[in-house]
């Protein structure tokens, strides 16, 4: 039975009804309504990123008012329903510190690594989603999951170094199989028997782990780092198998989705929209079933390749070439893609909010960081790159505000989000972007 508890509560308060029987949900919850009574464990808090390329239009997305209850600017209209759970960061700046701006790369990497990259593909350090994954993703089957709606597995911002990139899954069918294929253990299944094949696989991994010391001695320092990364992946696999051997705690929100179909992937906007919907729907199921607590979504690649069927130009090209309409102050054809992107974010939020969990929804129990790589794509501007945070992070965030950065470095946002997720750092970033100033207004 599907029951929208939120709607029921709203009805209860608004309509003044006297007796409404709350359904079975409460038996799962403890007195505070935040933890699963069966295990005593609090509901997990998740962290996700949602990325799109080519920014938004200056003057059309920054609210006039700061703080809570901000006004909704034209390009954010589709997100109006989420205002109280959506914080807008404007006026934060990515500094290049003399390293030169790489178009469609410096902005997103500065936001995620705290330092402008040395060149295309050359980051100074890991992206901070990996630090969050190392902090909160240790106990789930997957440390993190990456998806892209663009059809290209290279469209992933998540990296531990320049050469260690968490490739994104572009295919809903492959993503389904990875999540809910034979290795999936339904937490709500009545019976559970550990699979002896999984047991032998797990213990067999010792044959690889035994080689570690000998192998690391044979190679130079740089290769040692790479091989160590490999052994980290082995430990992660071992942990996945360990999780498959334990009876999972029942999860009220976990539903196994119906099998995905093979779809056409690519950068044509209609394909992007439909694949994005399928992928984030699967992601919502993966989160509800606690398969991962950290995820990264790409809606449009950096330097957006989105295009309409039959058109000769991409969104990226339009941002540079299309004349600005004086009446509206925007580029009409490029704005078509901006609108689809914001619609995509709406789809993302709606999907996460549609999964009921505990006293709220998945969205309430996550922190979703949506961001782009430039503010004004026409000139690759790195000032006031759009950044937003959706969700309440299980109460860790004071949600629903407009924060004006007044030219402060983007690292203040990254520092704040990492601290909210429990990453033990007090300052973050490099060069002129190094900061120990988090944004206290958004931390609960």
């Amino acid at each position: 039975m599907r029951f929208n508890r939120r709607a029921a509560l709203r009805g209860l308060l608004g309509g003044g009804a006297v007796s409404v029987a709350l359904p079975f949900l409460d038996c799962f919850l403890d007195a505070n309504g935040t933890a699963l009574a069966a295990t005593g464990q609090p509901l997990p808090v998740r962290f996700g990123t949602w990325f799109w390329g080519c920014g938004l239009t200056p003057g059309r997305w920054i609210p006039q008012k700061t703080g809570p209850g901000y006004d909704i600017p034209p390009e954010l209209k589709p997100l109006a329903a989420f205002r109280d759970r959506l914080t807008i960061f404007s006026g934060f700046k990515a500094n290049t510190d003399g390293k030169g701006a790489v178009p469609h790369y410096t902005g997103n990497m500065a936001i995620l690594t705290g330092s402008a990259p040395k060149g295309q593909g050359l980051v100074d350090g890991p992206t901070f989603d990996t630090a969050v994954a190392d902090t909160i993703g240790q106990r789930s089957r997957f440390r993190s999951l990456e998806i892209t709606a663009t059809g290209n597995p290279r469209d992933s911002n998540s990296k531990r170094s320049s050469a260690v990139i968490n490739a994104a899954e572009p295919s809903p069918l492959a993503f389904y199989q990875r999540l809910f294929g034979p290795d999936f253990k339904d937490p709500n299944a009545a019976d559970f028997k550990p699979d002896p094949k999984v047991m032998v696989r797990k213990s067999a991994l010792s044959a690889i782990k035994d080689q570690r010391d000998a192998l690391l001695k044979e190679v130079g320092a740089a290769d040692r780092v790479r091989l160590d990364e490999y052994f980290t992946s082995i430990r992660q696999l071992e942990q996945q198998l360990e999780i498959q051997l334990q009876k999972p705690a029942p999860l009220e929100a976990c539903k196994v989705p119906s099998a995905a179909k093979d779809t056409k992937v690519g950068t044509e906007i209609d394909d992007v929209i439909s694949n994005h919907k399928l992928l984030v729907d699967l992601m919502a199921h993966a989160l509800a079933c606690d398969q991962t607590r950290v995820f990264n979504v790409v809606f449009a690649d950096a330097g957006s390749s989105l295009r309409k069927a039959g058109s000769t130009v991409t969104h990226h090209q339009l941002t540079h070439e299309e004349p600005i309409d004086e009446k509206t102050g925007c580029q009409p054809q490029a704005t078509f893609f901006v609108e689809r992107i914001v619609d995509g974010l709406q789809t993302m939020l709606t999907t996460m909010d549609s999964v009921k969990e505990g006293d709220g929804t998945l969205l309430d129990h996550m922190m979703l960081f949506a961001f782009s790589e430039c503010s004004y794509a026409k000139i690759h501007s790195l000032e006031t790159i759009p950044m937003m945070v959706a969700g309440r992070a299980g109460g860790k965030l004071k949600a629903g505000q407009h924060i004006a950065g007044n030219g402060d470095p983007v690292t203040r946002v990254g520092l704040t989000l990492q601290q909210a997720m429990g990453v033990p750092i007090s300052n973050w970033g490099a060069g002129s972007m190094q900061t120990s100033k988090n944004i206290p207004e958004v931390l609960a």
Partner: protein
Amino acid sequence: MTMVGRTLALLACTGLALIGLSSCGDDGPASSGGPATVRRLTQEQYTAIIADIFGADIKVQGRFDPDVRENGLLAVGTSHVSVTPSSLEQYDGLARSIAAQVVDEHHRDQLVGCKPASVSQPDDNCAAQFLGEVGLQLYRRPMKPEELKSQVAVASDATKTLGNFYAGLETSLAIMLESPRFLFREEIAEPDGAGHLKLDGYSKATRLSFFLWNTSPDDELLKAAEKGDLDSERGLARQVDRMLASPRVEAGVRAFFSDMLGFDQLPGLAKDPEVYPKFTPVVMVDAQEQTLRTLVDHLLVQKGDYRDIFTTRKTFLTRLLGSIYRVPVQSPTGWQPFEFPPGDPHAGIVAEVSFLALHSHPGRSSSTLRGKAVREILLCQQVPTPPANVNFAIVQDTKNTTYRTARERLTAHRTEPTCAGCHKIIDPIGLSLENFDGLGAYRTAENGAPIDPAGELDAAHFEGAAGLGQTLHDDPAATACLVNRVYAYGSGHAPSKGEADWIKYLQGRFAAEGYRLPDLLRTIATSKAFYKVSEPARTEGPNQADATSRASAKEDRS
């Protein structure tokens, strides 16, 4: 050796080559050598190895992480990539699927060379025999006794738990298929007896085999490594000649050119079907095959001059490609040799669909992308990334009635001072290919205005693809570039300063021998320099200057 001495040696060497004695003792000037590398297998290599060891009917199905391009080559990138948790998951799935097939009832008798005393009990002897043999092939060197012991123990324990010998063997084999000893080609250095370091025998065999065949060493090469044959000039030359004479060298040459020409990007290439109704992913498969067939035929079969790949009118076509080139192809299904007539605008590999379509936009041609590709891919010259704050309006407005052709639009664009510096060294190259649209089909007009295919490359002025091809043919940078790429491809690193003299020598020798690819491969593969290891104290990591080369292609979309 003095300059004179070197020149004489070179001439002597050339003379010997001309009279058919291909062996030449001259090893050129001293080289520092490069690092002992640890390279991750590519998807093609992984697939080829499984087919070599277990047969082509074992299916290898799964996704591999994308490789990273550095210094113009994925082969160099393989020295710097690692295995992320998600890619290990993929390897794990592949390993389990392959191991299950190898021991299944259809294959076990053929692939497992022994039978257990009892199918439900461990049999350590049989397990050790199988795993030891497979281990030698997978790890490209004999397993250490403790490694074999531990793999046998895995098989034994798993057999006890699962009650089946083959299930136990499957478990152990799967682990070996995801072992770092298999997934990474780890090279080990040893003293060379002259105060420097060189690769040990098995590392030599592996470097050589992937260089020439793009797969693991075969039994004979492993035996040669075991006996120390590869440390003697004669023993090494015997193996190199055997390998170059084998039909398998074609796979190696294909792999090299696929990498150098960026063909890994063809499968994901998107073209607008409404602009190019003839475009399908199958066309791109054929286009890649066309170029590779042309290169293999010219360079390997005919042993032709490398420079002629830029001018040759000989190629191979399918009916599908015939519809794009607008020439009749008789064979309804297969490949057919084809020669464009003299004077035809199609000449050389830059006038082939694989090059023209890859270096274009989804809906239109791009002189900038094509010019950049000529410089970066064919001449090994670095083009800087575009600056911030650029207005592309004129170039991209294909409906602009004032600027109807790409030439007119780009000329207007090049008046912007911030852009002019770079665009004047790339656009005029690509403008000579404007007679080919974004898919590679010939045209004489754009938006009703006639196309002027005049081009410039440095001091050379020419017309059309044939003119560009002749210019590339005559440009020493093109042959120097090939030598650089071939060496970097084989050694897995960008040549360092300490190797510069040796590379120069290779270039001179390539010229003296008439620009024959098989001779170049042989010179490198039989040299000491190819296996010499520089001192380990160097910091690795993606090379700053060149990691950009492919990645930045995406950025520059003007």
